[in-house]
């Protein structure tokens, strides 16, 4: 067998490793091993890539490759190890964006090497696809990162004739791409790449903070497709398989996520969610005239201590305050007193589906105390207290009762059915979706303002005294 055949066999092995890795990631029991298997497969494939003579042909290039890899690893490992669990979505956005950027660069370099002066061939179409999608993924992820990191407003950014302008830019890109295809001009390719970067930005701007995770999932899928395109360009089976696996599964995952919010993907991407609400006013809560009932930690502590069934509904506020450990402490304390306690987890609680489960797992909350929304809702009517910790949109009855509301149709946790509702909130500010929550003004509702962790700690003390 030739060297190339051996390398191809190793690539096949790596591809199988990736498939098994994705399969493992689908079950809680095998997920970690699945991920490790994926990493091992990747390491193997990368190591054998150095067996290609072309990679070792020029010493300078080889040294630069190794230098770039060392720098990359030296930056990535500490960043990934130190990132807070709450900042995970941003981190995924960055790692996704750089992957898209790498795929775009691969396509650009291939074009520069091969294309100039040549007529249109199918390879060039793949190259252009890689450049376009890779660039959109790169700049889109950057904006998604900025939104989640709160470097810029999480609200949708809209401007007049937005859809028209975006459409014009998209058409212009197609035009440029065709031009590049026909002429093989590097200048046109650069223009295509730059305009694709612009498209990534304007595509993400009108998407509100609450929807950004869905968007990251979509961009993840895009990067996969860009990688697959690079695979076509480089005649590399492994890149095609890995990229396509991610591209296909990513699109499905994206659909599952938007479904969890009761909306279609098109609605998430193009409806400028939340801007409607700003128009109806009250989005900043300033003009609010209705009164809310606030309680002391002691009152609420007594309410909880003598309840039969308490449902804790965690949201992003709990995540930001890093209050998952204190929440578990409170739950354990209540359970010791014989109170029936469980956590009701909305599919999009936190900022990514499953995000809240990750955080609570970090606090060693046992699985059997976590109930998914569908499992929790039938029990809400028999709950004495629904303790909403830093959540808002996921319990907003407007999703059921107000057809005009932007979140109408989104499945929610029926906190309103509990006998008492307690909100731990930092302020009257509305949630991510930017809309008011009538439940806050309900007679059954008591509010305790403050940082989720502080409030929970106060409740722990109050329950101990009760």
């Amino acid at each position, binding site marked *: 067998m030739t060297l190339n055949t051996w390398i191809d066999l190793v690539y096949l092995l790596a591809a199988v490793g990736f498939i098994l890795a*994705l399969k493992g*990631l*689908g079950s809680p029991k095998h*997920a*970690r091993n699945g*991920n490790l298997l*994926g990493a091992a497969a*990747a390491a193997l*494939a*990368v190591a054998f890539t150095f067996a290609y003579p072309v990679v070792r*042909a020029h010493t300078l290039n080889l040294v*630069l490759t190794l230098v*770039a890899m060392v*720098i*990359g*690893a030296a930056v*990535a490992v500490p960043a*990934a190890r130190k990132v807070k669990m709450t900042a995970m*979505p941003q*981190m995924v956005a960055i*790692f*996704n964006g750089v*992957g898209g*950027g*790498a795929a775009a*660069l*691969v396509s650009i*370099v291939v074009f520069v*090497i091969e294309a100039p002066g040549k007529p249109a061939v*199918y390879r060039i179409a793949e190259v252009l696809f890689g450049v376009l999608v890779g660039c959109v993924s790169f700049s889109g992820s950057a904006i998604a990162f900025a939104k989640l990191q709160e470097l810029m407003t999480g609200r949708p950014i809209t401007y007049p004739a937005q859809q028209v302008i975006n459409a014009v830019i998209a058409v212009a890109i197609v035009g440029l791409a065709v031009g590049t295809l026909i002429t093989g001009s590097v200048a046109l390719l650069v223009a295509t790449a730059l305009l694709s970067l612009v498209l990534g930005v304007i595509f993400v701007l009108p998407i509100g903070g609450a929807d950004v995770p869905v968007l990251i*999932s979509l961009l993840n899928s895009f990067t996969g497709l860009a990688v*697959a395109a690079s*695979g076509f360009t*480089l005649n*590399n089976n*492994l*890149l*095609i398989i*890995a*990229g*396509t*696996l*991610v591209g*296909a*599964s990513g699109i499905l*995952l994206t659909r*599952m996520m938007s479904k969890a919010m009761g909306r279609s993907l098109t609605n998430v991407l193009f409806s400028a969610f939340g801007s409607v609400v700003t128009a109806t006013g009250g989005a900043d809560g300033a003009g609010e005239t209705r009164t809310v009932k606030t309680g002391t930690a002691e009152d609420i502590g007594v309410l909880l201590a003598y309840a039969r069934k308490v449902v804790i509904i965690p949201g992003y506020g709990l995540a930001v305050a890093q209050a998952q*450990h204190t929440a578990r*402490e409170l*739950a*354990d*304390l209540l*359970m010791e007193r014989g109170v029936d306690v469980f956590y009701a*987890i909305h599919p999009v609680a936190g900022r990514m*589906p499953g995000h809240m489960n*990750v955080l609570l797992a970090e606090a*060693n909350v*046992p*699985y059997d105390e976590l109930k*998914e929304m569908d499992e929790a809702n039938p029990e809400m009517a028999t709950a004495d207290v629904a303790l909403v910790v830093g959540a808002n949109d996921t319990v907003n009855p407007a999703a059921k009762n107000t057809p005009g509301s932007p979140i109408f149709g989104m499945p929610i946790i029926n906190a309103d059915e509990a006998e008492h509702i307690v909100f731990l909130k930092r302020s009257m500010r509305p949630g991510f979706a930017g809309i008011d929550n009538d439940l806050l003004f309900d007679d059954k509702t008591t509010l305790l303002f403050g940082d989720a962790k502080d409030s929970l700690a106060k409740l722990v003390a109050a329950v101990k005294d009760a």
Partner: protein
Amino acid sequence: MSTGILEFLTIFVLAAFVGIELINAVPSILHTPLMSGSNAIHGIILVGTILIMGGAHGTAQITLAFFAVLLATLNIVGGFVVTDRMLEMFKAKPAERPAKKPDASGDETDGGST
């Protein structure tokens, strides 16, 4: 159309079906690690960037390829490490039930690493 592209197209189509089938049965609690894990997998573009660097000539091409390798390494290394960190937490299975301790001061408890 050459037979080469048809072969690659076959692989592409089959891989797409496999990707869809793999995701179908994932419980929602694993959506975040799954997104992160698949994000790491497309970091395999690193292989492509290494090949590109091998064939690059001149400052412009080499510079672009250098950044390509750098970005791809960030993607693949960071992706797998971050996913492992997420999944590490799922490992503390309910078996020994570390909860139920009233003094559970929380923060640093890492739950019996098994």
